């Protein structure tokens, strides 16, 4: 099929599909008129039932916690998939780099000023990541956002030109294991409930007395923690694999 034929074929099909889709959408209650009941029921009962004032986190980690288990494993297995696919290249690098003295100390063109300015942000990134990861139940945050921000701290270290430091902090095997501990830890928290004779993922830690406090929502903080390290590890692994590819080229590999 030529590009022109394909385009017209698609446009014809898409025109019908768009009309069809709109036909369904116009019969919704209309924007701003969400009819419930799911969300309204949850809004009504979540604070009393889970002690979490951030209801989205309560949904993510409690009511629909099982979805989140699946979601974390999607990210986990995607990182493993990236490592699988790029694995072959990495082996080649180890052969090649024997010739020309491996990876030097980061990209040479980074100036000291840039390096310093970037490193200054590492501390705040770690802090923000930690804060986000640990306040799932109160504020609009949680392990996922915290994990990504934590991973950014590692990327900042790289941007500062400290690739060796980046690699020392994130050797592939270790990051792999940390990610696995994160994803597995979440699943294991759920299993603990089963071992106690409760349904899977039941919040088996006691709720505190103050709604919204970090320690008052039982397993939410624990799960959020595991999600945080899993996400951070997955992103560091993915970024690390891609970085190796890039550097492999820079250093005169193929």
């Amino acid at each position, binding site marked *: 099929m030529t590009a022109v034929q394909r385009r017209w074929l698609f446009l014809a099909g898409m025109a019908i599909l768009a009309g069809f889709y709109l036909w369904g959408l116009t019969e919704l209650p209309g924007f701003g008129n969400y009819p419930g009941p799911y969300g309204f029921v949850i809004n009504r009962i979540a604070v009393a039932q889970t002690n979490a004032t951030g209801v*989205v986190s309560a949904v993510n980690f409690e009511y629909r916690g099982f979805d989140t288990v699946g979601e974390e494993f999607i990210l986990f297995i995607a990182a493993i998939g990236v490592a699988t696919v790029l694995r072959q290249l990495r082996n080649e690098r180890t052969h090649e780099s024997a010739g020309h003295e491996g990876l030097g100390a980061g990209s040479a063109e980074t100036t000291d000023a840039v390096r310093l300015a970037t490193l200054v942000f590492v501390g705040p990134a770690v802090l923000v990541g930690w804060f*986000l990861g640990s306040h799932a139940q109160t*504020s*609009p*945050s*949680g392990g996922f956002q915290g994990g*990504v*921000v934590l991973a950014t701290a590692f990327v900042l270290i790289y941007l500062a030109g400290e690739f060796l430091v980046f690699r020392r902090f994130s050797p592939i095997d270790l990051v792999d294991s940390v990610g696995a501990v994160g994803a597995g830890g979440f699943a294991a928290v759920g299993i603990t409930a089963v071992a106690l004779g409760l349904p899977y993922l039941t919040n088996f830690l006691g709720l505190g007395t103050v709604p919204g406090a970090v320690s008052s929502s039982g397993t939410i903080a624990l799960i959020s923690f595991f999600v945080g390290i899993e996400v951070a590890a997955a992103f560091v692994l993915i970024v690390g694999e891609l970085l190796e590819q890039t550097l492999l080229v820079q250093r005169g590999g193929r």
Partner: protein
Amino acid sequence: MTGALAAASHVAAITTPFSVPPALMDTLQVVILVLVAAGATMVVLTRQPARQAIALSAYGLLLALMFLAFQAPDVTLSELTVGAVALPLLLMLTLAKVRKRE
């Protein structure tokens, strides 16, 4: 909107950024939606991949703004970290690998 007026802490500052009357909120949402639609078009029509990564980053920001206007600060934060930062970063890394050999 009474709750929004009472809000003072840092949390409420994020959660209820618009203590605006519904009519104004409507306008705001329409404007953002138009921008998002335009942004999506721009991302698709930018055929040069490096520029497209920038466009994608901008589109991520627009989406984040839209989530804020739809009272979803949680999603906003995710979209900021993923859509506006992490994905463009991955794209840049990929392109760096790909372009070096050309």
